[in-house]
């Protein structure tokens, strides 16, 4: 194995583990919406924003395989194959794409990366793209009209904006003091 591959493998595993640890954080239950707000979408933003498109997405695939293998690593100690057949499975698969898009944008903004551009990347990848995958999935699987499925998800947007803000602070701080993307 080449040295580059080993380092990237280790970093991928690290972010899969960070996802797992974030999953153990207590959920914030919100009255009126069926799924709790979790810290894990923060992990998705960090994986893409710190590792870049390719390895960020791969780290989430690795994480989802561990979940599929039966480990209760999703928030609320959920795990096993069942989570990929529930109504919100689209959001799980969407994580991979979201991390990829965030990584791609951060790589693009790299030379003039600041809080604003990082925040923008997290919103585009972690909210817009993610919802664009997750909501039609719910609509299809639950036979709900798209518009109604969308209104059912609006309640999560404020929480996701806060997470995008936190993620952008961390992404910029890491880019300044311990850059991974550049050193590839």
């Amino acid at each position, binding site marked *: *194995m080449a*040295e580059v*591959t*080993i*380092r990237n*493998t*280790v*970093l*991928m*595993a*690290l972010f*899969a*583990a*960070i996802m*797992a*640890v974030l999953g*153990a954080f207590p959920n914030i239950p919100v009255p009126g*919406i*069926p*799924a709790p707000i979790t810290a894990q979408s923060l992990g998705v933003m*960090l994986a893409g924003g*710190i590792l870049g498109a390719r390895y960020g997405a791969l780290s989430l695939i*690795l*994480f989802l*395989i*561990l979940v*599929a*293998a*039966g*480990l*209760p*690593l999703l928030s*609320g*100690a*959920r*795990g*096993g*194959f*069942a*989570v*990929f*057949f*529930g*109504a*919100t499975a689209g959001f799980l698969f969407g994580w991979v794409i979201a991390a990829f898009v965030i990584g791609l944008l951060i790589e693009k903004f790299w030379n003039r990366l600041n809080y604003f551009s990082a925040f923008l990347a997290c919103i585009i990848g972690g909210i817009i793209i993610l919802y664009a995958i997750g909501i039609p999935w719910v609509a299809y*699987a*639950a*036979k*709900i*009209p798209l518009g*109604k499925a969308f209104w*059912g998800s609006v309640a999560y947007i404020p929480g996701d904006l806060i997470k995008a803000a*936190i993620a952008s*602070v*961390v992404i910029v*701080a*890491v880019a300044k*003091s*311990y850059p*991974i993307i550049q050193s590839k």
Partner: protein
Amino acid sequence: MLTSTYYAGQSFLHTTRPLFKVLALFLVCTLLFVFDTWFVLTPICLAVFGLYGIAGIPRSEILLALRPAFWMLLFIFIVQIYFESLQLASFVILRFVTMILAASLLTLTTKTSDLIAALEQFFNRFLPEHIAETISLAFSLCFRFIPLVRQTFDEVTEAQKARGHHKDWRALATPTIIRTLKSADEISQAIIARSVETSHLSAANERRDREHS
């Protein structure tokens, strides 16, 4: 945290090869969407319940498997009744219940380690050796890193508490990430240092074996 919901048993479901079960699961769930009718859903649903009986899994496990999805399903049920009909609502919910139970059955009858081993075997067979090796290294490293990340987070939390920052996300997230990145880089170095060729070992062993015989 790292224990799955495996339910020990001796049934044929427990002994079937894991990848075969995964394949069957995907097949069944695809069927449920392609043939969007009660005529397909009802027999499959009954079959899944039958398999729970054959696998010797108690009813309480069925409820446990459905619990995480309960609020979501209730929500969908209400929305469906409100906008569509009771019939459509029950169909959609029963289809979710069937899929979730079928998937849980896989998890209940397959050890996590067996599933990962099966996956590694699959990769070994169909991917170039160095890629398969990298993937299995990544799995192991995940298990190694989960306690490391948690420990680092706890240490950072304590240090920030001592400085008067309570539950301040910025003060926790950045140092945790940077510290774990540094550890990850040292681990990479250790892996490189430890994965050097040591073919002199097997040569020495063969010599030893020859001298013994």
